[in-house]
C-alpha cells in the first residue's frame, strides 16, 4: 500500500466519482452528500500523508504499470506538486461541503463531476510526462465544462460555449506543440526532455523553440494570461459560485505547468534555449496585472470582482516565474496557496451575500441590508484584508516576499510600480464594494422569507477558507521554509533529472 501512496491522490477521486454514480452511495440526496464529503476528506488526508512522506524521504516517483522512465509514464510527487495536490484536495472538501447545502441539486451529477475535476487537477500536478499532462488537462476540462453548465441559465450557456470552443482550440495547439517536441526530442518524459534539450544542435534548436513557445500559448490560455484571459471573467462570473471557487485552482494548473516547463526543460541548463520564454512571460505578466487591475476597478458585482482578482494573481505569479530565481519561485509558491484560498473564499462570500440581498444580489451598489451583517461582514473584512495584502494576514507576507524577490533584479523598475498600482486598485475596489454592500442601505428591508440564512455546512466551508488567511500568517515560518525547500527542489536541475530517470532510487 505504502508504495502506491503516490498514486492515491489520482485514484481516489476517480473511485469517488464512480462510486457516487451507482447505488447505494449515489441513491439518495443524503447518501450522495455524505459519501462525497467523506471521500473528499479521505483524499485530503491521503494527500497530507503523502506530503509528510515527501518531506521525510524526498521526491516520490511512481512508475505506472512499473514501466520505468523514460519509457513509461511516471508520477512525480515532489514538494511543489504535493503541496498543490493538498491545496486542491482542501478546496474539494470545502466545495463539496458548501454545495451540500443545496447547490448540488440545481443540476445532475454535481458530486461525481467535482471528484472527476479533482482527479484531473491532481493528475496534472503529479504527472511527469508531457503527454499525460495533456490527458489530465482534458479530464479536468471536460469535468469543468459540465460543472460550468451546472444550474446555469442562458447567460451561462453562452459563456460555456465560448469557453469550450476556446479550450478545444487550445487542446489542438497543445497536441501540435507535443508533436513538434516529440519529433525533435524523441521523448515526452519531462525529465528526459530537459536532458535531451541540452544536446540539441542545428535546426532542431529552432523546432524545439517553436514547440516550447506553442506550449506557452496553451498554458497562457489555461492560466488566463493576457491576451488569452478574455474568457475568464465571464466564465467565472456566470458559473455558480461554489464551482467558481473550485475553478480558482484551475488557472493555477496553467501556472504550475509554466513553472515546470520553463524552469526544468527550458531553464538554466538548456543551452541556446535557456530562458527562451522569459521575456514573453515577463511582459505578458505585467500587462495581465495591469489589465486585471482595470477589470477590478470596473467590476460591477462581487463575483466579477473576484474573477478579476484571479487575473491579477495569475499575472503576479507569472511575473515571478519569469524572474526564475529560487527566491522568486518560493514567493510564487507561497502566493499560489494564499491567492487560491482567498479568491475561493471571496466567491463563496459573494454567493452568501447575494442570497441575502434579494434582487440586488451581489451587485456593488446600495440595496437592502444582509440578514447576518456581523457574520458576513467579519468574513468579508478578513478576506478583503488578505486579498489586498494588508498586515497582518497572509496577503501581506506574500506581497512583501514577492517584492523582496524582485528587489535585486533588473525587473524592479517595471514590476514594482505596476504591482503596487494594482494593489491600490484592489484596495480601492474591495473597500468600495464592502462599504456599498454592508453600509449603504436603500429601499425597504427584505422579509425573513426572502433572505436565505447561511446554512451550517456553508458556514463551515467558508470558515475553513477564511481561517486559512490568519493561519498562513501565524504559521508563516514553517510554510515559507517549505516553500523555499520546494523552490530549491524545482530549480535543482541535476537531482531532478537523476531522481526521475532512476525511478527514485
Amino acid at each position, binding site marked *: 500500500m505504502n508504495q502506491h501512496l503516490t498514486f492515491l491522490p489520482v485514484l481516489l477521486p476517480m473511485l469517488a466519482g464512480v462510486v457516487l454514480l451507482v447505488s447505494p452511495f449515489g441513491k439518495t440526496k443524503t447518501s450522495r452528500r455524505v459519501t462525497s464529503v467523506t471521500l473528499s476528506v479521505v483524499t485530503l488526508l491521503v494527500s497530507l500523508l503523502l506530503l509528510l512522506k515527501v518531506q521525510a524521504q524526498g521526491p516520490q516517483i511512481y512508475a505506472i504499470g512499473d514501466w520505468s522512465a523514460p519509457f513509461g509514464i511516471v508520477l512525480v510527487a515532489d514538494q511543489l506538486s504535493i503541496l498543490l495536490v493538498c491545496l486542491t484536495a482542501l478546496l474539494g472538501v470545502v466545495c463539496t461541503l458548501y454545495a451540500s447545502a443545496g447547490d448540488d441539486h440545481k443540476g445532475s451529477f454535481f458530486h461525481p463531476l467535482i471528484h472527476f475535476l479533482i482527479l484531473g487537477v491532481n493528475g496534472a500536478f503529479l504527472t511527469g510526462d508531457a503527454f499525460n499532462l495533456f490527458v489530465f488537462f482534458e479530464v479536468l476540462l471536460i469535468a469543468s*465544462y459540465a460543472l460550468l453548465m451546472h444550474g446555469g441559465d442562458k447567460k451561462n450557456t453562452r459563456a460555456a460555449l465560448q469557453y469550450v470552443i476556446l479550450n478545444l482550440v487550445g487542446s489542438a495547439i497543445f497536441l501540435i506543440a507535443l508533436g513538434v517536441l516529440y519529433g525533435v526530442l524523441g521523448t515526452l518524459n519531462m525529465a528526459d526532455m530537459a536532458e535531451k534539450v541540452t544536446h540539441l544542435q542545428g535546426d532542431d534548436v529552432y523546432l524545439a523553440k517553436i514547440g516550447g513557445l506553442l506550449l506557452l500559448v496553451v498554458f497562457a490560455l489555461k492560466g488566463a494570461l493576457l491576451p488569452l484571459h478574455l474568457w475568464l471573467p465571464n466564465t467565472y462570473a456566470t458559473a455558480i459560485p461554489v464551482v467558481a471557487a473550485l475553478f480558482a485552482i484551475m488557472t493555477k494548473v496553467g501556472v504550475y505547468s509554466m513553472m515546470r516547463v520553463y524552469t526544468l526543460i527550458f531553464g538554466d541548463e538548456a543551452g541556446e534555449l535557456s530562458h527562451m520564454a522569459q521575456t514573453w512571460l515577463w511582459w505578458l505578466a505585467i500587462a495581465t496585472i495591469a489589465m486585471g487591475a482595470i477589470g477590478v476597478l470596473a467590476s460591477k458585482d462581487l463575483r466579477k470582482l473576484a474573477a478579476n482578482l484571479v487575473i491579477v494573481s495569475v499575472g503576479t505569479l507569472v511575473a515571478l516565474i519569469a524572474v526564475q530565481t529560487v527566491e522568486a519561485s518560493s514567493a510564487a509558491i507561497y502566493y499560489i496557496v494564499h491567492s487560491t484560498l482567498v479568491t475561493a473564499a471571496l466567491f463563496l462570500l459573494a454567493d452568501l451575500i447575494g442570497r441575502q440581498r434579494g434582487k440586488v444580489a451581489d451587485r456593488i451598489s446600495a440595496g437592502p441590508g444582509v440578514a447576518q451583517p456581523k457574520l458576513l461582514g467579519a468574513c468579508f473584512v478578513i478576506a478583503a484584508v488578505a486579498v489586498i495584502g494588508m498586515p497582518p494576514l497572509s496577503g501581506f507576507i506574500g506581497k512583501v516576499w514577492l517584492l523582496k524577490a524582485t528587489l535585486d533584479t533588473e525587473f524592479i523598475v517595471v514590476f514594482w510600480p505596476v504591482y503596487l498600482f494594482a494593489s491600490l486598485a484592489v484596495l480601492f475596489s474591495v473597500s468600495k464594494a464592502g462599504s456599498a454592500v454592508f453600509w449603504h442601505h436603500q429601499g425597504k428591508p427584505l422579509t425573513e422569507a426572502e433572505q436565505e440564512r447561511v446554512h451550517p455546512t456553508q458556514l463551515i466551508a467558508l470558515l475553513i477558507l477564511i481561517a486559512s488567511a490568519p493561519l498562513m500568517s501565524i504559521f508563516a515560518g514553517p510554510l515559507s521554509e517549505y516553500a523555499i525547500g520546494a523552490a530549491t527542489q524545482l530549480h535543482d536541475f541535476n537531482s531532478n533529472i537523476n531522481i526521475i530517470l532512476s525511478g527514485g532510487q
Partner: protein
Amino acid sequence: MELLYASCVGVLVFCGVFLILRSRTFPVVLGLTMLSYAVNLFLFSSGRLSFNQAAVLGTGTEYADPLPQAFVLTAIVIGFAMTAFVVVLAIRGRSDLGSDHVDGEFPITNNNNNDKNKKVKV
C-alpha cells in the same frame, strides 16, 4: 510523400482555422473537427514517415516509431468525446439563446436577415 503529407495537414489546418473564425456554431464545430484531423495527422508524422518498417527497435537503424501511434489513438478518443460534447452544447445554445451565433445574438447591421432566427421559440 512528405510533400503530399505536409500539404494535407496544411490544407486541413487552413480549412479548420477558417471555419473556426466563422460566427455560427455549426461551421465552428466543423472547423474544430477539421483541426483535430490535422492535428492527428501531424502527431502521427512526428515519429517520421516510413514504409514497411518494423515497429520494434531490434538491431536495425530504421524503424517505425510506435509511440506517436499511441498518441494519435489517445488524441482521437479525446477529440471524439470533445466534439460530441461541443455538438450537444451548440444545440443547447441554439435553443437557449434563440440563435446559433457564438455570441448568442447577431450583431445588428442593416443588411442581415436574421429575423427568422430570432423569432424561433425557445
